[in-house]
């Protein structure tokens, strides 16, 4: 019921006013009685051996409670991580990246803690730091990780953390059939997630357990990790996860929470640690990548083979670096029908910030390479760049990775829509150019979400969901589903999130899964309520269950229709009370699948752009950016457009200006906003248009698919293609800064 804020309504964001007025309480704002303040002691280098730490002067400062070092933590140093348990609570004898904590100060105030940090004397020996693929793969390279903490395997004595081989067909045989073969290497720089709210943590002793606040995407994984590190039952670890102020993947997994928990336990009081933006840069980043692609086609543009060698430069601890390289690489060949594909993917350790997922999860890096190389092949063959894509695109229901989830949408419809909106084939003035690119990303490969919905006596409802609403608008989506299913208006629905002691388990908030998985759990909880109402009415009216249908908030018995709040009132009677529904949604793992499971759905996007290039300065202006996503069904069209535009702008920023810069010593040189530039409102494309293809063919409620990453997947190749179209300059590394474009213009042949 759209008019009541149900599905399909352009409902206002729940919590939106608080967010924009500053009323929302983030971890930094939450009042906690008796709270102490922590500050990290770090070194001005990446890789160092810690010789000694003298904390006496700092601890002598009035108001400073203590300085904690690795010596104060259990031996051996507790380690944790989502895939590999390799991350220490604090640097253990050696720092492996610029910004890794060697000590932490706890004081009465933030200012005192800062002052005390300057009084901690750390004697250390700077060691050579690896921050490039070449250095990491050199035969005599220093090993970033001690083989003793590595999983046994063929690469344990190298900086290769993991190596994956995917593919089908015989690439070497197919290569003989190709009329045109194009091979190039494409670089994607390391970047940072740049959530406006830097990470924040609080921990407080709680009787014989602990309470942890964190701006985190996966509170239940944090609960499990803290329990394991502290040796507590999960029931004694309560995680509050206040809605994060942006996350973009950078707040998925546990980072400094175990350290803050140890600080709080030692202090016997709550301890808060709020990172600065500079420290947030040192907490997480997106992995850079170098992708070598060889594409073989027939003269008419038909794909014969694709051959990839992908190297992802991950940080010093695995975090999700291995998963990003594997999952990103698995779909290297894209949404195309290719008879032979070979993919080798390696994640490479380095003395840099641990890599966390970021919007796109490795797919933007491989898409940048594949789509750019496909353009080069098309140009070499004299085939239109749109035509080569349409020619090779798989049809609805056709597999693009043999044996895996087939195309779950009419993808050609998406591509044709983008082409029509950019007016593909029409001429452009001198100095302007046009590009088009396609991105496809697997949604979650496994998933598990539970939800509880309480239908209260007055016909209002509370929905409990373990999703983190980090700005994507999950609260609003669940409330819309409840409003629709229980036949009530949106303002009668409250959404409770972010408390592991109260809200049932959710695996995680990532991979654009929540509308689908948690959405289904919420839907199933509503259906559970509907079933209970139906059973009770059947009893009361002495009719068969089957004679009653309930759909979208209305009960029907023969010709009689009754809104659910009325049904509820009858069922509860004078005693009142409530009806509670529980729902579950799962995507089971498949042990033998290389990714642990098939894609639940695909995010499919086509982006087309017109650019103008200033040939004197190399400056690129995006005149028009068209993004079209296959969304299944827009449960809230305003939010769908908002997410899509957000990803498109983020993609444009990552294409044109964003990159982390490391010094020869491995220090991150552009820490913070001054020298790491993201687009402002003045840097937006002159025109940005987002379109949705809706065929209600997704696995989520009412045919929903996840949509929050799509338009970031292929922005870079679309813009670079347009720059080439405008100027003839070919650029294979990012960002497309004016200086880089200017150099390419000088070098063009």
């Amino acid at each position, binding site marked *: 019921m759209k008019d009541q804020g149900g599905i399909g309504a352009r409902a206002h964001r729940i919590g939106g006013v608080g967010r924009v007025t500053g009323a929302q309480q983030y971890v930094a704002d939450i009042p906690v009685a008796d709270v102490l303040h922590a500050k990290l002691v770090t070194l001005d280098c990446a890789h160092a051996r810690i010789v000694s730490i003298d904390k006496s002067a700092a601890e002598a400062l009035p108001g400073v409670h203590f300085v904690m070092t690795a010596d104060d933590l259990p031996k051996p140093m507790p380690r944790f991580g989502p895939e590999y348990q390799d991350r220490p609570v604090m640097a253990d004898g050696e720092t492996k990246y610029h910004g890794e904590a060697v000590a932490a100060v706890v004081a009465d105030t933030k200012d005192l803690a800062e002052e005390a940090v300057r009084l901690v004397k750390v004697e250390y020996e700077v060691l050579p730091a690896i921050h490039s693929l070449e250095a990491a793969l050199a035969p005599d390279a220093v090993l970033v990780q001690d083989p003793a903490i590595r999983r046994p395997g063929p690469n344990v004595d190298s900086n290769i953390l993991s190596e994956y081989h995917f593919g089908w067909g015989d690439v070497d045989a197919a290569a003989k059939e190709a009329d045109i073969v194009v091979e190039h290497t494409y670089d994607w720089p390391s970047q940072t997630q740049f959530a406006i709210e830097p990470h924040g943590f609080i921990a407080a002793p709680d009787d014989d357990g602990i309470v942890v606040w964190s701006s985190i995407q996966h509170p239940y994984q944090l609960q499990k990790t803290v329990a394991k590190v502290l040796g507590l039952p999960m029931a004694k670890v309560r995680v509050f996860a206040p809605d994060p102020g942006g996350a973009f993947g950078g707040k998925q997994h546990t980072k400094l929470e175990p350290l803050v928990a140890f600080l709080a336990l030692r202090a016997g009081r709550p301890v808060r640690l709020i990172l600065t933006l500079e420290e947030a840069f040192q907490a997480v980043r997106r992995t850079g990548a170098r992708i070598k692609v060889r594409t073989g086609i027939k003269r008419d543009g038909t794909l014969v083979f694709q051959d990839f060698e992908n190297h992802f430069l991950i940080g010093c601890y695995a975090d999700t670096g291995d998963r990003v390289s594997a999952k990103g690489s698995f779909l290297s060949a894209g949404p195309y029908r290719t008879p032979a594909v070979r993919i080798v993917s390696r994640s490479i350790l380095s003395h840099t910030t641990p890599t966390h997922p970021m919007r796109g999860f490795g797919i933007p890096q491989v898409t940048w390479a594949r789509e750019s190389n496909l353009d080069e092949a098309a140009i070499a063959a004299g085939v239109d760049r749109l035509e080569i894509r349409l020619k090779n695109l798989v049809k609805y229901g056709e597999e693009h990775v043999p044996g895996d989830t087939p195309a779950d949408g009419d993808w050609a419809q998406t591509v044709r829509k983008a082409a029509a909106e950019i007016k593909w084939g029409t001429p452009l003035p001198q100095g302007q150019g046009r590009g088009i690119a396609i991105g496809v990303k697997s949604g979650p490969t496994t998933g598990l979400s539970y939800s509880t919905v309480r239908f209260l006596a007055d016909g209002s409802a509370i929905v409990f969901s373990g999703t983190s609403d980090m700005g994507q608008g999950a609260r609003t989506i669940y409330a819309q589903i409840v409003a629709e299913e229980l036949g009530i208006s949106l303002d009668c629905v409250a959404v409770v999130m972010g408390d592991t002691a109260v809200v049932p388990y959710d695996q995680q908030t990532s991979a654009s899964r929540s509308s689908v998985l948690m959405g289904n759990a919420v839907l199933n909880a509503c259906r559970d309520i509907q079933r209970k109402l139906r059973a009770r009415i059947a009893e009361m009216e002495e009719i068969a269950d089957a004679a009653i249908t309930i759909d979208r908030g209305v009960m029907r018995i023969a010709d009689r229709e009754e809104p659910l709040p009325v049904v509820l009132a009858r069922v509860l009677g004078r005693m009142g009370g409530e009806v509670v529904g529980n729902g579950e949604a799962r995507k089971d793992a498949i042990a033998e699948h290389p990714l642990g499971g098939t894609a639940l759905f695909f995010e499919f996007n086509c982006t087309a752009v017109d650019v103008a290039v200033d040939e004197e300065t190399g400056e690129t202006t995006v005149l028009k950016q068209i993004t079209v996503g296959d969304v299944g069904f827009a449960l809230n069209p305003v939010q769908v457009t908002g997410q899509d535009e957000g990803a498109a702008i983020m993609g444009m920023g990552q294409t044109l200006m964003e990159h982390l810069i490391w010094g020869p010593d491995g220090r991150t040189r552009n820490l913070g906003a001054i020298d790491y530039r993201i687009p402002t409102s003045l*840097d937006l494309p002159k025109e940005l248009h987002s379109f949705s293809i809706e065929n209600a063919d997704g696995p989520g409620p009412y045919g929903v698919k996840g949509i929050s990453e799509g338009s970031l997947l292929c922005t870079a190749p679309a813009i670079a293609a347009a720059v080439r179209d405008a100027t003839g300059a070919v650029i294979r590394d990012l960002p497309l800064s004016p200086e880089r474009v200017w150099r390419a213009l000088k070098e063009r042949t």
Partner: protein
Amino acid sequence: MQAFRYLRPATVEEALGLLEEHGDKARLLAGGTDLVIELRNRWRTPEVVVDLKRIEELRPAIRVEGKRLVITAGTVMGDLERHPTVLERFPALAEAAAVVGSVQIRNRATLAGNICNGSPAADTTPPLLVYGAEMVIASRTERRRMPIDEFVIGPGKVALGPAEMVVAIELPMDRPIAAAYTRMTRRHGTDLASITLCCGVDSKGTTRLAYGSVGPRALLVMDESGVLADPKANREQKAPVLAALFAKASPSPTSMRAGPEYRVAMLPVLGARALATALERLGKTA
């Protein structure tokens, strides 16, 4: 942030007295858009911060006195970018003021603070150099005027004694110069420039060029041959003259904003563009 004493004098005299008392342990706060960041990050740890915002003499912002435009030390960028006289007579200064920081910063940041901070990338330095601005410097014993070209020394350094302060910046109104400001940045929104550049021409055919962010301080250079200001001279004739004016550019090889080779190559591009705008403006006033 380290603790400091915060003082708020009501007069220039009082402020100068505080400077004399505390010497280099004191730091003046005008808009605070540089100072507060320095305090927060502990890059500066003054014992005393002297807030100038309540000093009546430093307001009103902008006035004409005889043949000078007086811009008091309390004048913020937002005042400049909107002021009718500035827009009419000194448009390049309005253009430079309009790109400093964001709207919020421009409502706070002062022109005098921008110059006294001594950043090689300060947006307002090149137009002030081109227009021949003078700094009005006060101490307990005297008030003196100094051309901005002598006042600006190098990164973070200006010719200001520990017991002195700038009370105003003055622009001569009897020397009509048609000028334009341009710059190069990494993005259109709030940014620090990798090149700042102002070009001014007068009716006698003299071209003044000031450029910053490509060396330790912004430089003022002149073409008195008349070639650059000559509307009949073509691109090929102007190019070598323009190139010679940028000979002293020495951009940092380690800057993250842009490489030195690129910056050097962009100077004549920006120079030619600003020159064209300046000539256009000269044509309109003639």
